[in-house]
C-alpha cells in the first residue's frame, strides 16, 4: 500500500475530493497547512508597515491506497488540482507498511 500526500490550493479541495471518490477512493484525511515555495507570496505595505506574506494557505490531502491504484490517484489529483499557475502544489508518495481499521481491527487493504 502507499500513502499519497498532496499539497493543493485550498479552493480546489472539493474538486479533488470528487475526482478521488469518482475513482473509488473511500476515504481521505485533510489538513490545513501553510506553504512556502516558488509562489512567492506578496509583500503587503499597509499603514506604513511592510510585511512579506511568505507562507500561503494550502491544503494537505493524505490518501492511503492500494499500490496498483497509485497512478490513477495521482492522475485524478493532478487533473482536478491543476490551474497551470505557479503554486498548484505537489504530490508525494510514501510506502505504507501497514494499515488498521480501529473499529474492526481489519488490516492492510481491507482497512482502507
Amino acid at each position, binding site marked *: 500500500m502507499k500513502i499519497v500526500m498532496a499539497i493543493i490550493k485550498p479552493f480546489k479541495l472539493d474538486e479533488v475530493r470528487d475526482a478521488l471518490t469518482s475513482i473509488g477512493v473511500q476515504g481521505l484525511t485533510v489538513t490545513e497547512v501553510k506553504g512556502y515555495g516558488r509562489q512567492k507570496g506578496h509583500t503587503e505595505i*499597509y*499603514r*506604513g*508597515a511592510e*510585511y512579506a506574506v511568505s507562507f500561503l494557505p494550502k491544503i494537505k490531502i493524505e490518501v492511503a491506497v492500494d499500490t496498483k491504484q497509485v497512478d490513477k490517484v495521482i492522475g485524478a489529483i493532478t487533473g482536478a488540482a491543476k490551474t497551470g499557475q505557479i503554486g498548484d502544489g505537489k504530490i508525494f508518495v510514501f510506502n505504507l507498511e501497514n494499515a488498521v481499521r480501529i473499529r474492526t481491527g481489519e488490516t492492510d487493504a481491507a482497512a482502507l
Partner: protein
Amino acid sequence: MTLKKSSRAGLLALAFGILLGLFLSVASFDASYAQAPAAAPAEPAAAPAAPPPACDATAKPPVLEKCTPNSGDTAWMLTSMAIVLMMTLPGLALFYGGMVRKKNVGDTVMTSFAITCLISILWLFFTYSLAFRGGTPFIGGLDRAFLQGILSDISKGIGNPNPLAPTIPETVYSMFQLTFAIITAALVAGSFAERMKFSAMLWFIGLWAIFVYSPIAHWVWGPDGVFNSTNDAAWVKVLDFAGGTVVHVNSGTAGLMAALMVGKRKDTGPAHNMVLTLIGASLLWVGWFGFNAGSAVSAGIQAGMAMTVTHLATATAGFTWMIVEWIMRGKPTVIGICSGAVAGLVAITPASGFVGPMGAFCIGVAAGIVCYWGCTGFKRMFGYDDALDVFGVHALGGAAGALLTGVFAVSEYGGTAGLIEGNAGQVLNQAIGIGCVFVYDVVVTLIILKIVDVVIGLRVPSEVEREGLDLALHGETVQ
C-alpha cells in the same frame, strides 16, 4: 528572566502605589469629616443674614449655589459618560486588538483595560482637580483632590454645579471628563503595541496622565485656562469643542514619541482579525456621540447639531478613505474604511460645536485623505514604526480638524466666525494652540519615557516579542 525581574520591579512599584492610595484615602476621610462640622455652622450663620443668592448660571460671575440639576441634561450626560466609556472598553480595545497579530491581542486589549483602571484612580486622587478646577492659567488647584466636596449636599437635594456645567451635578461632569482622560491615554498605547513591557506601559501612562494630560486639558478647558475660548482672560482663544488638541493632537504626539523611543518591531504582519477592528470602530462611532454631543453638556440644539456634524463627517471620511484606497491599492479594505471613519471622528471633534453639515462634509473628505496619507506616504517618509498609527490618524487628523474648525466655523451655530465668514484670525489661533500642545507634549513625554526606560526598561526581550506578549507576559492565548 529579564522579564521576570522587570515584572517584579513593576508590580512592587505598583503595589506601593496602591497602598499609598489606600493610605491617602483614609487621610482624606479624616479631612472630609474634619471639614464637615466646620461647614455646618457656616450655613445657619449665613442664613439669618441674607437668603443665599438664587442659582443663576448666566450671571457673571455665575451664581451656582443651590442649583437643582436639569433632569434632561443630566439624563443625557449620564448616558454620554456611559457610551464614552464604551468607546474605550471595549471599543478602542477591539479596534486596536484586531490590528495586531494574534499572539499579542490579549496584551493589547488588556492595555486599554488597565489604563482605564489606572487613570480612574489618579482622577479620584488629584488629576480631575488639577485639570478642571480653577487655579492658574496653566494648571488647576487641588481643592477637589479625592473628589472631596463634590457631593457636599445631596441630602438637601441640591448641588453646587461646576461653572463649566451649570445644569448637571458636578459628579456627572467629573465622570464625563474622566472618560476623555481615559481614552486619550489609551489611544497613546497604539503606537508601541506588540513590544512594550506591561509594567513600563503602566508607569509611562500614569506619569503622562499627570504631567501631560492634566495641564493641557486645563489650558484648553479649565475655567481659567490659557487657551479656553470661554475665558475672557485667555491668552489665545482656541476653539476645541470636544478635544481635537487636548485628546487627539496630544495622544498622537505622545504616541509618536513612544514609538521612536521603544523602536521598531522585530516582525510585523497583517491585522489578525478585522472583524474585531470593525466592532471597535463601530462602538467608537456610537460612543462618539456622547463625546461630541455630550460636550454640549446639555440636551438641546447644540447637542443636536454636534451629533449631526459628527455623524456626517464620519460617514464621509470612511467613504473617502475607502475610495482613495480603492484607487491607490486596487482593493477597499475593512481596516481602511474603519480607519477612515475614525479619522472623521477625530477631525470633527474640535469642530463639532461650531460648524454646520456641509462644513462637516468637507472636514470628512479632508480627514479621509489626510489620514490615509498619514498612515502610508507620510509614515514611510519618516520611517518610524507607529504600530497602529496613532500619529497618522489622531495627531494629523486632530490638527487638520482643529485648523478646519477655524475655516468652517459659522457664528450663528457656535458663536464664533471662521475663515469662510471672513475671520482669518481664528485659523491662526487654532495653529497656535496646536503648536503649543505639540511642543510641550514632545518635551515632557520624552523626559517621562527616558526615566521609565532607565528605571525598568521600556521594551520586552526579543524572544518574548517573537513568542508573543500574550503567552509570555500574561500566560494566556486566544484559541
